[in-house]
């Protein structure tokens, strides 16, 4: 075709770890791909395969909402705000006669990714993730206690570095707890992947972009019930067990961290009231 210039870029430099002699593991056959796991068993950001990123969370961030929470998982930052249960807004015909309607909205801030995003919400990915959030929280919240009412959960990603949905679920769990809406159990979510045969827990953005299989699990830790399980790319049936186990362990570890945050918050709130 006339007028088209094809440029070929040089391959990206290979990350070299001191002492590693064998070729990097990652996408087989492509020597230029960033390796997911080095020979010593370290990932690109220095973590062990089953290690989670550092989690920092806070509840009660906003005073005007019924419940709110903020969570940081590594570099991923998510904010969740909960309103409700209140009367149905909009069309009353959508009200369920025996339970509450959970309405979720997922949005990513325009400054959350490397390049400025044009539409914070309303695109297909946001709609799909909002539907997943709704499905997850309808399983966990005791909606039968609030017939014909609505619970709104709004989550926003302030910085996206892998595990967006997981950070949203964890933030929304804390926010629902802050609002005093009864739930069956915590909902903890974590992603897992595979580097050859080793399962990796809590994938960061470059690990997700590497193209390997990615498993997202939302778990109710006390009973071990799965609220949502999502798999992208292909995974052999024999490897599913290992990846699922790694994701489950990561969710339970996350549950321990969130539990500590909630206990600290409860202690703080009861101390403020002078109990």
């Amino acid at each position, binding site marked *: 075709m006339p007028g088209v210039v094809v440029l070929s870029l040089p391959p990206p430099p290979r990350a070299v770890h001191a002492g590693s002699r064998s070729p990097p593991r990652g996408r087989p056959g492509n020597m230029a791909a960033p390796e997911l796991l080095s020979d010593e068993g370290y990932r690109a950001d220095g973590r062990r395969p089953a290690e989670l990123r550092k989690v920092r969370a806070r509840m009660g961030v906003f005073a005007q909402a019924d419940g709110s929470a903020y969570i940081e998982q590594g570099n991923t930052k998510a904010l969740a705000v909960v309103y409700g249960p209140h*009367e149905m807004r909009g069309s009353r015909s959508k009200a369920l006669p025996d339970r509450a309607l959970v309405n979720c909205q997922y949005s990513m801030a325009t400054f959350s990714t490397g390049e400025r995003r044009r539409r914070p919400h309303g695109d297909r990915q946001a709609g799909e993730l909002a539907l997943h959030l709704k499905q997850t929280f309808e399983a966990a919240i005791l909606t039968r206690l609030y017939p014909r009412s609505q619970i709104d959960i709004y989550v926003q990603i302030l910085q996206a570095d892998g595990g967006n949905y997981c950070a949203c679920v964890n933030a929304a769990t804390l926010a629902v707890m802050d*609002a*005093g809406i009864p739930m069956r159990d915590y909902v903890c979510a974590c992603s897992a992947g595979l580097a050859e045969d080793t399962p990796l827990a809590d994938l960061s953005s470059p690990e997700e972009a590497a193209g390997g299989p990615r498993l997202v699990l939302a778990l109710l830790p006390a009973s071990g019930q799965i609220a949502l399980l999502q798999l992208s790319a292909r995974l052999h049936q024999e490897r599913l067990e290992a990846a699922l186990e790694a994701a489950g362990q990561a969710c339970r570890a996350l549950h321990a961290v969130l539990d500590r945050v909630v206990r600290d918050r409860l202690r703080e709130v009861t101390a403020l009231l002078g109990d």
Partner: protein
Amino acid sequence: QQLLSARPLGERLCSAEEATAGSGTYTRHGFIFSSLAGCLEKRSEDSGLPVVSVVRDAESQLLPDVGAVVTCKVCSINSRFAKVHILYVGSTPLKSTFRGTIRREDIRATEKDKVEVYKSFRPGDIVLAKVISLGDAQSNYLLSTAENELGVVVARSEAGVQMVPISWCEMQCPRTHTKDFRKVARVQPQFLQT
């Protein structure tokens, strides 16, 4: 009644044989779990098992339930019904108001067909009503004032002064001495402030 330490939710409190589940808890597989993050409270009942409940300091939103007495403010009237905003459920204020409807046939218990809505309520009145239905796809909460203790408690006359009730169907303005028709509530003496 003892207030024990703070509990996050999802925690297994005890087995269903030792206690009964109160508010903020649920039962599953013969055990009682907490569904709220708050303080554990164990109340010993005279009959049978103690009641275990989890309480939060800030009261979470209460929804009007069937049979609850609510305090509402009339916002508009019609020849067939009166539309109200529900402000209080019992004695707890609601954070966001709910909408309700009082139909013409639910205003009084006797002579329902002779009722005129204009002579029972006016916009701006504070009314005590009881919830009879949560409503269906077309309507919001249905309320009724068909009891002696239910009806208008506070009403202002056209002069803007709070009116004094003189009978079950009339109220009088203390300044202009004009009488207005309302469906007045017979408030229990212990609730009156003198």
